[in-house]
């Protein structure tokens, strides 16, 4: 029933019933005047209500929400969330995190035992626990006020740590975001990163080269490997219709166990002379140079990631390829009718997405862990990337912002644990609640009584 409604204002309607009012009686030059024919039977002229519209066409009227399902799927709904929804999701998550921090804090637990005698104690303890934890999170990720003797370096070290952690998250986030814009869920970040780490690492420790060249060759090798690994899923989807969610997840396992085999087998990727499943360290010539000198961990990785954001933005928003990407993502049928090779677009999109993932994977071995890596080198970034992309609404700049936030979580989470004894799991809860809220925009809208957006997405 629901799509049968007539809508006022001439909004879109595409039902079977619609028929033309073609010539009824082909009277030559039949005068189309309303009350023209005096001798013909009366039309009780429009007396009842004066309708102030002289034309049939009405200007663009927003569609009713009821019609949304026509244009959108779940992914569209997620993408359709406004930036406000993203912000509020973060807010909700912090509130939920605060509740958990308070509930798990020992002082709060003790003082709540005599809550009715002295409620002030409990409230004070809650404020101190939550405030202290979030203050530590802030100091650990943005700006450290507590060490004036350290000077400027100590002040901004947290910020550089945030950027350091954010760099691979941003690149990997792009890998999810790009696929998402083409209507595909790239859950294969892990596998793609592992493939990339293996390739970049192999180039990085096996083939000595001049410094800059070595960095670039290793990066390219990583991106190619990531692209190919993701491309398998794209090809399977295009050729056989296999769903990319299934194939990318399965490819994660393939990559994981393949890499495990490679790094535990002497003569392959295992470090010579080692009995442990670990690779040799990345040669210095292949390591991404430090960006701000030896005082900080920050490398050129963040620059590469920001560059990647710019490239992704151009690709999606400005390029011909991106035009096809988005068209296929929004309406593959219309794309097909417009002559686009939808299957090919699926493969292309996965190649591009995998390349971004590859950039993240290569950064892991060329910047984060340069002393030899294990099969855990992806550090969960491939999955965090999904959250980052969702929070960033799959736009490149949004992904950048979300990546920075998650980098801050990582940098600040450690300090929160060390300084306040708040388990780092709380940070993970906050992250997860963000995803929950992002995935259900109506939930956030309900909590904050935001109006439901009307009409199309942007």
């Amino acid at each position, binding site marked *: 029933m629901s799509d*049968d*409604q*007539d809508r*006022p*204002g*001439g*909004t879109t*309607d*595409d039902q*079977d*019933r*619609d*028929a*033309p*009012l*073609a*010539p*009824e009686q*082909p009277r030559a030059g*039949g005068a*189309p005047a309303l*009350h023209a*024919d005096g001798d*013909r*039977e*009366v*039309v*009780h002229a*429009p007396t*009842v*209500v004066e309708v102030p519209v*002289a034309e*049939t*066409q*009405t*200007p*663009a*009227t927003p569609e*009713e929400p009821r019609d949304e399902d026509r244009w959108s799927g779940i992914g*569209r709904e997620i993408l359709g969330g406004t930036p406000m929804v993203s912000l509020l999701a973060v807010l909700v998550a912090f509130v939920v995190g605060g509740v958990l921090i308070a509930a798990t804090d020992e002082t709060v637990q003790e003082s709540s035992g005599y809550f009715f005698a002295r409620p002030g104690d409990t409230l004070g303890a809650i404020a101190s626990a939550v405030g202290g934890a979030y203050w530590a999170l802030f100091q650990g990720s943005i700006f450290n006020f507590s060490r004036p003797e350290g000077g400027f370096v100590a002040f901004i070290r947290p910020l550089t740590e945030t950027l350091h952690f954010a760099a691979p998250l941003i690149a990997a986030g792009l890998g999810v975001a790009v696929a998402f814009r083409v209507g595909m869920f790239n859950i294969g970040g892990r596998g793609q990163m592992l493939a990339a780490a293996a390739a970049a690492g192999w180039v990085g420790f096996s083939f000595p080269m001049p410094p800059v060249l070595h960095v670039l060759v290793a990066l390219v090798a990583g991106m190619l490997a990531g692209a190919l690994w993701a491309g398998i899923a794209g090809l399977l989807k295009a050729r056989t219709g296999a769903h990319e969610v299934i194939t990318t997840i399965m490819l994660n396992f393939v990559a994981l166990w393949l890499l495990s085999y490679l790094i535990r087998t002497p003569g392959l990727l295992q470090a010579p002379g080692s009995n442990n499943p670990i690779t040799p360290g990345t040669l210095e010539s292949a390591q991404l140079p430090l960006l701000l000198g030896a005082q900080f961990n920050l490398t050129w990785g963040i620059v590469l990631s920001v560059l990647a954001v710019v490239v992704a933005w151009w690709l999606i928003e*400005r*390029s*011909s390829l991106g*035009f*096809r990407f*988005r*068209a296929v993502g*929004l*309406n593959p*049928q*219309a*794309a*097909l*009718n*417009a*002559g686009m*090779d939808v299957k090919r677009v699926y493969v292309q999109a996965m190649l591009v997405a995998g390349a971004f993932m590859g950039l993240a994977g290569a950064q892991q071995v060329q910047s984060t862990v340069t002393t030899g890596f294990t099969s855990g080198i992806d550090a969960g970034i491939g999955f965090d990337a999904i959250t980052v992309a969702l929070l960033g609404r799959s736009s490149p700049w949004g992904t950048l912002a979300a990546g920075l936030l998650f980098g801050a979580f990582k940098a600040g989470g450690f300090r929160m644990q060390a300084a306040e004894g708040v388990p780092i799991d709380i940070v993970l809860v906050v992250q997860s609640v963000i995803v929950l809220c992002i995935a259900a925009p109506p939930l956030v809208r309900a909590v904050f009584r935001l109006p439901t957006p009307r*009409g199309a*997405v*942007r």
Partner: protein
Amino acid sequence: MTLELRGITKRFGSLTANDHIDLTVEAGEIHCLLGENGAGKSTLMNVLYGLYQADEGEILLDDVVQRFAGPGDAMRAGIGMVHQHFMLIPVFTVAENVLLGHEKELGGLAGAKRRVVEISERFGFQIDPDARIEDLPVGVQQRVEIIKALSLDAKVLVFDEPTAVLTPQETDELMTIMQQLRDEGTAIVFITHKLREVRAIADRITVIRLGKVVGEAQPTATSIELASLMVGRPVELTVHKQPSVRTDNELVIEHLTVVDDQGIAVVDDLSLTVHGGEVVCIAGVQGNGQTELTEAILGLQRRATGSIRLNGVELLGRSVREVLDTGVGFVPEDRKVDGLVGEYSIAENLMLDRYLGAPFVSRGTIVRQARDEFAQERLGAFDIRAQSIQTPVGTLSGGNQQKVVLARELSRPLQLFVASQPTRGLDVGSIEFVHAQVIATRDAGIPVIVVSTELDEVVGLADRIAVMYGGGIVGVVPAETSRDDLGIMMAGELPEGLAA
């Protein structure tokens, strides 16, 4: 039973779908509710049927105010509805469908069967209560809907655009049934926008426009008068065109066969030639292979065999891209699904099929200035009413959406123009515009194929009419062929005296 709606108002957000609508339907009359798409007819009926709650106003049956929380209440009060899209479960039998939801009232399956037989006999339906719905023709399925409504002793029966899926003959039979129901004292609300049907059967006519009742009319009013009332301004119903001048361009389809997933031939050994400068309309009831035929031309059907030659160039086996580049303009039957990307702006939709190379793409980047200038020009040329070229197409009215499709498809140098249901869901003003564009394309010497299930449109536009049935062409006849003969052909028979 007298049905009275008083001051019914229904709002959706800022939209007022029904604005203080008053309507009285007496027992034993057929009351037509006439209005364009989007005028608010279906909303009103959904309020009546309990699917929506009115924001203001009340529903009275025999002067008693009714409260309907859902369709169940409405049915119990004696209101039945025959939906445009049948609410039947295909794998259930007739009796099972009638029984559904009313197990107690009807006394189980046996009771439902008795009821089906009884009602069929009363109206001469000849329906087997044990037949499965999916095995029945569309016209018969509709009768099951009617039986379903009558089985609960409906005193007020609402027909929501009931003729959309019927052949002309089936439509005539439905009208007879409606008249019989009226004569038995049922109050009938007949929702439609087809003027011919209104004039044939209505006792009273209420015209709705933009959610308001704009007037009542007598069935004796002319079509033009009714249309003008419906649209709110004088309208032109005839398609003006000069005699066809054939050119050397031609589309030759030979032995085209398209099989579906099950291996059934949905287009079956079809041959058709369309000359430049003529409009060939493909008439027929929906689902007789028209969609597959147009898809095969566009290159969307991989399982097509035979030959489709445009000016000597074989189109079959080519990709959509190649077919478009050959100079084929295509208006798909479902513009929202196949023709437009709803979230894309008007400007982006206008370049949807020209994403490679000049003028809109240079070195891989979209040239936004060229795109926007082009869109601005098209906006004016095709009278697309929108705030700006950046407006998402999904927020436009159906008429404006179709204009965007036409503006795009007619902007390339064409050698063939195929339009599938080009005016479906459009208001009268847009229909005039679309028809004028089709004729202009024909007059430019291009072969034009228009697929339409609307006989009025077919007769108005066509230079020749090809009637499709069961995947084949029953016959290609001149535009002057009588509606009766066309109706017979739409049922798969070739009337005597007509050459195939």
